[in-house]
């Protein structure tokens, strides 16, 4: 029997943001700050990436407050 081939699912809508994750999981500001500190210290992470992560932490903290 021939298998039903499907076309790839096209993801609608904008990509998820850190702010959205904070809202969905109701992450506290302390938890967001701790997680961000952990992520931005990932070995090999470029300084510019760490800065972006820090900037988005501020947005995420605003979303959670």
């Amino acid at each position, binding site marked *: 029997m021939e298998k039903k081939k499907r076309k*790839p699912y*096209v993801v609608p*809508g904008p*990509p*998820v943001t850190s702010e959205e*994750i904070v809202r969905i999981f109701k992450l506290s500001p302390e938890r967001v700050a701790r997680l961000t500190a952990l992520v931005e210290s*990932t070995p090999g992470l470029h300084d510019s990436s760490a800065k972006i*992560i820090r900037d988005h932490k501020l947005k995420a903290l605003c979303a959670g407050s």
Partner: protein
Amino acid sequence: MSAPAVFLNAPYDKEFEPLFLAYIVGVLGFGLIPRAALEIGGTGNRIDRIVGMIKGCGLSIHDLSRVELSSRPPHLPRFNMPFELGMAYFYSLSSTSHECFIFDCDDRQFEKSLSDLKGVDPYSHGSDVGRLFSQLLRAMTAQELKPTSHQMTAVYMQVKDRLPGLLSDSGSDSIFHARVFEDVVFAATSLWTARQVKSRSNQP
């Protein structure tokens, strides 16, 4: 408008942790929000809440690769994954806003264990993280984001590196705890966001 969510229906056992982490990283690469029944506690009407979660997701991924007899006695098959697939599949028939994807270790196992779905093409990952990423890329595409298998692997390795810290922070030894799951999702989202922002700023 918010990003669509994906219901991850997968086995919660230690051997499956690398693949579960890969699903989280992979679906976030497409900008989707991973959700899982482990977020729901054991109290109250669990099944109703799982149905509610499935209905709140635009798609669901059902991994049937470990529908097998438990290793410890009593040796019983694991019904949760096929049961949740059945609920999501039925819901997808009546809703234009829900898609089901079936993943398995290999095609033959799937045909034997769930012959009712003969004719459906499962995505076989062979229990390999790299192959799982390839299959996710085969199953879906995003309008805004163009994740590659290489990028998925890079983010996966970064999250994997941070996992001991996340587990220690939660006092847990498993990713299959609500708090660890949420922390992993946040960490992976941050790492993907950094890549996406850099990629946009590098575009002419």
